[in-house]
């Protein structure tokens, strides 16, 4: 047990998620990832003279869904603002965003460590909608130092989620991001794919250091960028925490004495580096976007979005544990796999009339197979009715679990039905009399093994099991072993 650090780590996150809309926020261009550069563009997202934005209602509804799921207060009236700055991947010279009247604010999302290490409710300051910029590619390798601009992404709808500085460790930050991602994927708001840029995280971190006089010293806040996975968020925060502690000890510099610093995470090197200061006190000259009309949100609209939302992961974990009498840990494992797996589980559990056995089959057999095959449950060839059929047969004693696993594998490999596989493999339950007769036969045929066992070498009985399987593939190896040992001892 190491001593706790002599400071408190204070972390707040700023998360941008791309909404799962078919088209962009203010025009009809596709948001599909991976198309050839500048092929999903039109006068509006190119910012050509005279072009005008028209709000995508679906994007607004998805954003509402996310904000409601984060327990935010929804503003009855919200407007758009222009954030002005020059950059080649921002073709209008301004980004349409929300400044002083975001559509939602003041929410929260809890994260609970399943092993009980922490439980943290993180406040959400605001969630707002904005359009993405394009992508700049600085191609130094080409030797020309030219930059290339791809505007396919320009105008893609983004939800910006800003948390309170409520997180207290890099581990918590990572766990909370996992929980946020799970929630947003559950709701169908975003696919949260960090590789494709549909989820981006910036982190603000500093340390609170209690002083001998009772005062708490606060180190300067650092914003970390360029983190491309939740793992790198955790690593970057851990690095930065340690770096700030060292710097504090060396300089005793407190917040407010230096301008806010931005540092970039260098993943291969495992360090953060100071970035060039942005334009000194960047002034975005926000003002209301005159090309769009304000959006009003009615109670009916909110009720409709709530109604269509479905159970959130936190609620679902509790509900699943209660409905199916499974442990909170099991419920956590199932829920963290996503909404499709939970639906699959509930289908199987309903059919077999029991949660625990369905949960076991899912965690031990289905999930393992899905991982091996790198497949989603929707594409899994054994559908819930087939798995329930198999589990039901085990429950009825047609065959035991280990034989059931073999059938599972065969169904998976052949694509045939459970009944079909059972019939062709000649699977049938082995009765007690049948088992005893088989074991007597084996003992009679193997005097050497019997002698060895009698001589104290019980492991010699293993030789009998292989032979038993050849005589009757339906026998349970464990039962054969036990029965044989019992008979030999009785001799």
């Amino acid at each position, binding site marked *: 047990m190491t001593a706790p650090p002599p400071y408190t780590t204070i972390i707040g996150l700023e998360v941008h998620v791309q909404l799962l809309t078919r088209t962009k926020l203010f025009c009809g261009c596709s948001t599909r990832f991976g198309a050839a550069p500048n092929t999903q563009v039109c*006068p509006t997202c*190119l*910012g*050509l*003279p*005279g*072009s*005008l*934005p*028209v*709000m995508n209602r679906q994007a607004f509804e998805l954003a509402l869904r996310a904000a409601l799921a984060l327990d935010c207060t929804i503003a009855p009236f919200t407007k758009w603002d*222009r954030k*002005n700055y*020059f950059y*080649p991947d921002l*073709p*209008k*010279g*301004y980004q349409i965003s929300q400044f002083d009247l975001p559509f939602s604010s003041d929410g929260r999302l809890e994260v609970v460590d399943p092993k009980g290490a922490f439980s943290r409710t993180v406040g959400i300051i605001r969630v707002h909608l904005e359009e993405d910029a394009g992508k700049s590619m600085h191609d130094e390798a080409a030797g020309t130092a030219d930059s290339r*601009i791809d505007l396919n992404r320009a105008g893609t709808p983004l939800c910006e989620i800003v948390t309170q500085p409520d997180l207290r460790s890099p581990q918590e930050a990572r766990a909370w991001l996992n929980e946020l991602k799970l929630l947003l994927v559950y709701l169908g708001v975003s696919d949260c794919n960090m590789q494709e840029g549909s989820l981006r995280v910036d982190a603000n971190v500093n340390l609170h250091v209690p002083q001998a006089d009772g005062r708490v010293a606060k180190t300067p806040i650092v914003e970390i960028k360029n983190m491309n996975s939740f793992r790198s968020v955790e690593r970057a925060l851990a690095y930065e925490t340690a770096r700030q502690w060292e710097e504090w000890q060396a300089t005793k510099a407190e917040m407010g004495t230096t301008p806010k610093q931005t540092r970039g995470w260098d993943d291969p090197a495992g360090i953060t580096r100071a970035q060039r200061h942005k334009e000194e*006190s960047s*002034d975005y*000259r*926000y*003002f209301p976007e*005159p*090309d*769009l*009309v304000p959006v009003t949100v009615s109670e009916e609209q909110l009720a409709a979005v709530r109604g269509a939302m479905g159970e959130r992961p936190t609620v679902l974990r509790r509900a699943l544990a209660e409905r199916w009498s499974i442990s909170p840990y099991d419920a956590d494992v199932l829920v963290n796999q996503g909404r499709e797996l939970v639906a699959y589980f509930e289908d199987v559990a309903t059919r077999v009339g029991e949660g625990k056995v369905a949960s076991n089959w899912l965690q031990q057999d289905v999930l393992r197979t899905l991982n091996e095959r790198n497949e989603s449950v929707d594409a899994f060839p054994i559908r819930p009715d087939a798995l329930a059929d198999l589990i039901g047969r085990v429950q009825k004693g047609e065959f035991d679990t280990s034989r059931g696993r073999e059938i599972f594998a065969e169904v998976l490999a052949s694509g045939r039905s459970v009944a079909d596989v059972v019939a062709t493999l000649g699977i049938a339950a082995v009765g007690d009399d049948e088992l005893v007769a088989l074991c007597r036969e084996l003992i009679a045929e193997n005097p050497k093994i019997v002698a060895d066992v009698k001589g104290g070498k019980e492991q010699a009985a293993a030789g009998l099991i292989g032979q038993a399987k050849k005589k009757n593939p339906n026998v349970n190896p464990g039962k054969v072993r036990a029965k044989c040992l019992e008979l030999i001892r009785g001799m």
Partner: protein
Amino acid sequence: MQPLELSAVDLVAALRQGDLTAVECATAFLDRIDAGNGAINAFLAVDREGALARAADIDARRRSGRPVGPLAGLPVALKDVLCTVDMPTTCASRMLAGYRPPYDADVVERLRRADAVFLGKTNMDEFAMGGSNENSAFGPVRNPWDLSRAPGGSSGGSAACVAADMAPVAIGSDTGGSIRQPAGLCGITGLKPTYGRVSRRGLVAFASSLDQIGPMARSAADCALIMETIAGHDPGDSTSLATEVPRYGQLLDKPLTGVRIGRVPEHFAEGLDPEVARGVEEAFAVLEAAGATVHEVRLPHARYGIPTYYLIAPCEASSNLARYDGAHYGHRAQAAGQAASGRAAGGAGGGDSPLAEMYRRSRAEGFGPEVKRRIMLGTYALSAGYYDAYYAKALRVRRLIRQDYLDAFQTVDLIGGPVSATPAFKLGEKKDDPLAMYLVDLYTVGTNLAGVGGISFPCGFTRSGLPIGFQLQAPPLGEPLLLRAADRFQQLTDWHRRRPRPAGGAPA
């Protein structure tokens, strides 16, 4: 049949009846442009070939009994701030010299569907910023009534081409008076519709919350005809109104009995030219003779119109014009270090990244002085620490101004008065005095700030032969009454029929 002498309404009728072919009609106006545009500089681009091909196609369809649109064969000139796929769209700026948009503005689409024939693109103040047309990067337009004078602006080319018989109809845009003021100074009729009545999609933005497109023609009846085609909801413009479009032309022919017209005493204060004042008073008398009654109304915040307008419009412009950075289209400065130094380009020079230097130089070279002035005004007013004192306050005053109008329209149906304080001024007269130039919008900016409609039409001439304009303003969507009142006035007067002596020789 002499097309140049006919109104748009009569031209459409003559074309429909076969008294005139679309090719004959287009040819007459194109020839007039050829003869007169050198002196007046109303057109930046003339599409003779395109216009004649289009006219020939319309004639062919008509001959073979195939359907044609309601404006079939009517020549129309377009202000060069409207996007057109088949002609350059420059906004009279070096920044967009030669720029060809990949799409048509909504109004252009509507006019094409109606089978109008586009003659060309008209000159204007750069990016619609100005009241004299002297801010064009391609030379000023000259007023057809006196070539030494300005036609007004920013739709100066559109106004001058109609006044000089180079087009029966032109489309303009009005952000603070840019249709009404040049219409007044050139002796034609111009309508600035209610904000949102005509789609702004494809109108290159100056100040988005104020810009509105409208018709400029020889008469209110001609404006009504064009409005039937260009007005209407556009799902591509979020600020466009969904209200049904009336048949403006059919609502004209009614007396003005019972119509109450407001007269604002402040309009007749110091600074109003006495000849203009006399013309305006006579116009009130004509309207009374037509059955209207005149009542005094107040617009208490009208005197804040100019400062309010010159904050809101430049703020929006500073953002709307940020896109012209040389990166994607438009003028781009030569590679760094080749041409002018950073200092010559208006920047502090040195220390800039090549990208920032490219932006700075492209914009310094591409924009004219008035555009730069407004970008700087707007950028300043929106900056941190100034926003509340300038932009936010201007928005509050704007609401008061709109409320003034709505209050006034509780007691009157229309508000009448001058369009400009003076008749057409000399080219160069105000060029070096931006403040004096800003005051030419004194009577017109209120309409835009309030988002209502206004119409300008000639109500007399000065002794030296310059047109005097009269303005009527109406409550939101009051275009039918505006057009009806102006049409009634034009039934009783013939100021709108007067023509300047043709520049470049008498018409054939």
